[in-house]
């Protein structure tokens, strides 16, 4: 054979597309979990490539905490329209209103954990059997243990101590009624890979990822958006700063980074020199040493 080698982005892309096609082949009713963050955007973009010229054979599911940045919703709606996909919204507000979950109170109140119930209820309501997510193994130590095809029992639980072995690229998506799978096509990508790919493919990104002036306040060493959904302590002063989001989630748990990055190329340079992980800015991970594992066991993304 000619001495062909393949470079890392091509190899990662190829692996992810393989996984997405396996989902389409093995499941009856898969869905893409779309948060409006870069990882779910890249996942959706990869799905577009995987099935072209056919449409993506999955709807998008957005679990809406009601505490989203408006930019996220605008981007979501434009994307759905462009790709001609069905959008399903699972509303945390509705879960609160119907008494399925109880709103947290206090300065650290977040709807992050409440999303689990809304997500599982929505999966159950639409009988989704595979939920595709943009989680990556490099994000967090519990996610580092995750399989590509991750089995969830009828309670939506992950059992990290007894995961199905996953060998080579042979994925076993067999399950009983009522169980489902979480599938993570970009498991092996790092934050840097994601941004390099966005750069290479010229994927349009929500404006929140680029520097903008915003009213912010500091809490536990990180900048948070000064918006009504977060209750500020009397000592927490609002200031204007040039910031960008490194991850996009619910407003209450998205830390903002001081940044001058106006282009994807700037972001790549910034990540190359940073000494803090992207989830270093996420309040939801700081609740305990194994916060992510505990939430994942309960059915989190």
């Amino acid at each position: 054979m000619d001495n062909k080698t393949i470079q890392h982005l091509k190899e990662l892309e190829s692996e992810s597309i393989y996984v997405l096609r396996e989902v389409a082949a093995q499941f009856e009713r898969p869905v893409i979990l779309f948060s409006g963050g870069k990882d779910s955007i890249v996942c959706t973009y990869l799905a577009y490539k995987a099935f072209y010229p056919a449409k993506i054979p999955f709807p998008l599911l957005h679990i809406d905490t009601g505490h989203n940045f408006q930019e996220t919703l605008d981007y979501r709606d434009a994307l759905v329209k462009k790709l001609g996909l069905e959008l399903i919204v699972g509303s945390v507000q509705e879960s609160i209103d119907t008494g399925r979950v109880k709103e947290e109170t206090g300065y650290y109140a977040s709807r992050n954990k409440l999303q689990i119930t809304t997500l599982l209820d929505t999966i159950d309501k639409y009988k989704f059997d595979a939920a595709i997510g943009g989680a990556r193994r490099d994000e967090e130590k519990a996610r580092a243990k995750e399989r590509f095809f991750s089995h969830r029992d009828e309670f939506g639980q992950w059992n990290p101590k007894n995961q199905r072995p996953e060998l080579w690229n042979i994925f076993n998506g067999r399950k009983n009624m009522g169980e489902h799978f979480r599938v993570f096509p970009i498991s092996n990508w790092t934050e840097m890979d994601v941004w390099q790919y966005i750069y290479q493919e010229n994927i349009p990104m929500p404006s929140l990822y680029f520097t903008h002036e915003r009213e912010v306040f500091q809490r536990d060493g990180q900048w948070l958006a000064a918006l009504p959904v977060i209750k500020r302590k009397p000592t927490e002063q609002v200031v204007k700063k040039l910031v960008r989001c490194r991850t996009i989630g619910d407003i209450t748990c998205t830390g903002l980074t001081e940044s001058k990055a106006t282009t994807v190329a700037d972001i790549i340079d910034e990540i190359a020199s940073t000494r803090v992980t992207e989830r270093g800015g996420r309040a939801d991970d700081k609740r305990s040493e194994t916060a992510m594992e505990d939430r994942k066991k309960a059915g989190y993304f």
Partner: protein
Amino acid sequence: MTKRGYLDMELLRFSTAGSVDDGKSTLIGRLLYDSKSIFEDQLEAVEAASKSRGNEEVNLALLTDGLRAEREQGITIDVAYRYFATPKRKFIIADTPGHIQYTRNMVTGASTADLSIILVDARHGVLEQTVRHSYISSLLGIPHIVVAINKMDLVDFSQEVYDKIVEDYRKMSETLHIKNVVFIPISAKDGDNVVNKSERTPWYKGKALLDYLETVPVGHKTVSDFFRFPVQYVIRPISEKFPDYRGYAGRVSGGIIRPGDRVRVLPSGLESTVKSIDFAGESLDEAYAPESVTIRLNDEIDISRGDTLVKADEKQPHVEQDVTLDVCWLNQTPAQIRKKYIIRQATFETQGMIRSINFRRNINTLEKEQNVSELAMNDIAEITIHTAQSLVFDAYDENKVTGSLIIIDPDTNETVGAGMIKYVE
């Protein structure tokens, strides 16, 4: 380094085998730390966790042992994947457990590796577990093995100790088909020969570990030179713009394909020629492993998921219902002869049963054990299976994609066996 520098790097996937006592986690911690791939908040979290456990030193194992149960027990249970990059390459580490009861997880981690690092404690030399880890690496056809002789600081960086271990290892590995072994004397704790060459081992002429990892040839030698394309999914848009489009989606799993090539569909034997190779709206001049593409043919013939496209003028894969393979049993429920299982190989699925257990391998002594009627979890054995429909396969040592399969228990849907197909004339 500029952003350009990050694009287009080679990717090396390697696994590490060993237990906490061998210094495996310390080694990974060292690689990440010295290559500046540990971030401040991760280090702070590990420092805080070490302190709250009463550890005197920062316990780098907490970087990789992420599960609650692992942290409680101080052992690695399941594979953890770690990522780092240097200006030369990107790396994916599959950090696998070394204990015998987690062999199945080691097999999982090793199945996608291009290289395996096997740790040996310089004070103890080649042990049973060294044999086991080496055997599994060879069984899974990992092309490169690095024997990292660790804790050299505890044997005064003695060349004599090192030479003895190298000699013992070579003797042991003669029976295994290990192609490419490199020995490196290291101290993971102090960093000798991990990222930088150590002055304390002037007698060692080879490379430091990271330097070796950055330069060892990668390439997809795990698949053969013959074109193999297991069909994953048929793309049919049935849209106004593409009313007649019918493309076969899959991943090239060997060789190279170009428009105009004559292809054969297996197992049916029908033939056609390649009309075009499509990828997201582009037409490609060629495609090779491991690219995911969509292939269109000039004739409308019956092709569905599970079929394999090959080139008509190349060496053909085997098409048979009786297949002999090495299997690693992965489940608590023992393997039973004549029970019906589901066999999944590449994108194909059929029923199958174990006809015979030819022998079980004692993975500590490598001896063959005869007259075995059942396989327990973590056992490795040669078995012969019979399938309801023919498998289209190559031997595992020629092609890891078409030569591997998993066994699924239809009662539980669990993956219970991992098989590497042998070809026995």
